Every structure is written in C-alpha cells, then in structure tokens.
C-alpha cells in the first residue's frame, strides 16, 4: 500500500532532499513546480548560484509583495530579485551556458522517467502541448539532470520501463527524487539508493514499473 503523505509535505520533502545535493559554488537551474521549491532549502554555508533561462545568474528570493519589476522575473514569470554578484544576459548566452555544460545541475519535473534515463515532460499528445520551452536544452546541456516529482500520479507509477509520452531527452536523467525514494540512473540501469522511512523496498517495487537494483546498504531519506 502506498504510504499516505500529504502532497505539500511530499513536495517539500523532495525539495529539501535535493537541496542537500549541492556544493558551494554550484550553478543550478530550477524548473517550475516542485523544482522551484528547492531554493528555499539550501543548507547554510552552501552558496548556490541560481540561473534562470531567461537570462540571469544570481537569482535571489521572490520580490516582496508590491515590489519587484516585470523586467526581473523567474522562468515561471514571478518577480524575483538579483543577488550581489549576479548578472543579466541575452537568451543566446543563457542557452550557451546551458548547452555548453556550464550549469552544474538542472532540476526538472517529469511526466515519466524510464530505466534508461529517458525523460518525458513536455507534452501529452492530443491533450496538452505547451511546448518544450528550455527543457530540451537543459536536459541536453546541464552536467547533471535531477528529476523532482511525486512517485505516482493517481496511484500509477511515473517511473516506467519505457516512456510512452514524447521524450524531452534520451538517456539524460542522472537522479530521480520522489517523496518515497531516490534513484540513480547508472550504466547498468536504475539503482535505488534511499527510501523514505514510511516505505519499504517491496512498496517501492509495487509502485515503480521500472526494474531496479538496490544499493547495499540502502539509505533512509531524512524527512
């Protein structure tokens, strides 16, 4: 049985766990949704430089209510701030940095991820076609691609044997973070490295369509 974890708790848990992955000076691009929460949980003493694909390094917190400007926004359109040492640049430079391997980590949401590290997160044919935005460039160019998502959707696994939706990128995902587990995608396939205290390997197997190996010793997610 799937452990019952309220959505908000689950999302914060994922964000907090991912925030522990960074080291001082890392350059990170956060997608919208759960990924955007990661910024709030960076451990003290670690200075992460956030990039927004619309042309900024050094993104700071959201602008205060009634402050800010539409000329400084995050990728989701929210008014944000720029930290000292930040910089602005045009879209070709922004994606040059992304495609050129100058971004250490991108954190993205997913509709599906599969055993090979294929990622689908940009369209559902015949239903929702928002466009890929910067996602295809991000998964192609960032040094590491982290997926942040709830483990299931309506009880159905999102980590599948083979993505059925149109791909954002092939063999691009390095790690998957859900409220129940952390996986690494290795050359020999999916590896379960941590599970949530409420979960067991059996439960993860039940709600994960993809095959995976289990790291020994298996870690327990801090929650």
């Amino acid at each position: 049985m799937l452990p019952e974890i309220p959505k908000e708790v689950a999302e914060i848990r994922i964000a907090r766990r991912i925030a522990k992955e960074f080291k001082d000076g890392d350059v990170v691009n956060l997608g919208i949704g759960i990924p955007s929460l990661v910024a709030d949980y960076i451990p003290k003493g670690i200075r992460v430089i956030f990039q927004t694909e619309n042309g900024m390094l050094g993104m700071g917190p959201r602008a205060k209510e009634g402050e800010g400007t539409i000329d400084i926004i995050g990728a989701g359109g929210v008014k944000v701030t720029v930290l000292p040492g930040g910089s602005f640049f045009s879209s070709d430079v922004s994606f040059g940095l992304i495609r050129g391997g100058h971004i250490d980590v991108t954190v993205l949401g997913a509709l599906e991820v599969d055993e090979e590290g294929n990622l689908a997160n940009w369209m559902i044919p015949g239903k929702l076609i928002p466009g890929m935005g910067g996602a295809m460039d991000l998964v192609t160019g960032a040094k590491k691609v982290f997926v942040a998502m709830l483990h299931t959707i309506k009880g159905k696994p999102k980590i599948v044997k083979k993505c059925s939706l149109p791909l954002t990128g092939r063999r691009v995902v390095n790690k998957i973070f859900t409220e129940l587990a952390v996986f690494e995608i290795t050359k020999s396939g999916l590896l379960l490295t941590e599970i949530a205290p409420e979960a067991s390997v059996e439960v993860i197997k039940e709600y994960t369509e993809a095959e995976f190996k289990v790291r020994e010793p298996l870690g327990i997610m801090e929650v």
Partner: protein
Amino acid sequence: MGSYFKPIMSPDEAVRDIPDGATIMIGGFNVGGVPYSLIEALIRKGVKDLTLICNDTAYEDVGHGKLIANGQVRKVIASHIGLNRITQKLYNEGKLEVEFVPQGTLAERIRAGGFGLGGILTPTGVGTLAEEGKQVIEINGRKYLLELPLRADFALIRARKADRVGNLWYWGNARNFNPLMAAAADIVIAEVDVVVGIGEINPNDVHTPGILVDRIVVAGGEYYAT
C-alpha cells in the same frame, strides 16, 4: 540603415507600414521584455495573417498574446505556448499553425539569421520530436540537428534606454531575445522607456549597436503598470 540619427515615432506611426501577412519577431519572455505599446498599435491597426516569431505567446490578455486572441495571427514559431489558453485552443482546433522550437535553438536560429550563418548544429532535441524533418549530422560519434536561420520583415523589441543613434541598453532579464532580434529583421523598431543623449550610454556597455535599429518609440507608461 539610411540615416545617422534614428527617428523617434509614435507607436502607430512606427508600425504603419507593417502589411498583412508580414513575419514579425517580437521580443520578450513571459511578461518581461515585451514591446507592449507597439503591440497595442498593431491591435489598433488590425493587421492580419501575421507570422510571429517569439519565445512564447504570453497570456491571452497580455502583450502579443492579445494578437493571437484577436485572430490576427496565422502562424507562431515559439518554444512555449502553454500560458496562453487561446493559443492552445486555436492550435488544437487547427486554426493556428505552431512551430515548436527548443528555446536555445530558437535563440541560435535568430542569431544565425542576423549574423549571416547558414545554420547551426545543436545536440538539443536529438531523439525527440524536435528531430522531425531535420538533417541529422554526426560528428565524432555524436549526433546533432542542423537548424536553419530565422529572419523577419520586422522586429519589435523592447529596451530600457536608447540614444539618438539607436544604441540600446537593456535592464534585467527583460533583455532575453531582444538583442538577437535586433539583427535579424529588415526593419527594427525599438520601444524604450527613455531616450538619452549621445554618449550617455557607456560605449563599453551598449547592448545593441545603433546601426541595427531603424525606429525608436517611447513606451506608453500604462502598459508597464504591472
């Protein structure tokens, strides 16, 4: 570009010669860096059958999203249309053509169009739907898509400052696609907040050289209230 000093025009005057069927680049990402006053002038003018090249289609009631909602657009070349419900609806109904281009590829294609390149090879989109209809070139064992340049008849862009010879300076990440589009269209119309004296923009910090700009329009404040 014909004259040393660039004319300062009203929005309506600046877009007067944009004909039905024109291909127009419009700067901006979401709500930032969009030339709102020029778009309002296009709406007043009622020009039709436009092809827009833009990062996204904003919202149905904001910026160039309104041109789509207003039925003035035949085709959109963009990376994202998800926030404008009417773009999505017209697209699903087959009433609007949409060419999806990954955002970084869109930037490079516009840059290539402006800077005289015949195309660029990008790893982005290999093995996805973005590969459809494109030449795949393998170099040292890695696959790349050959992506072709984009150009337009007009570019409508937004900057913070201009001087009288057309040099532009942008503020914040409202810069985004604007400097790229400034090189990639036959006629470039820059909407700015303020026109400063020549020399007031430090020559080291000119973001778009004035030779690329044809017309300057001072933004109407009301569009920037948000």
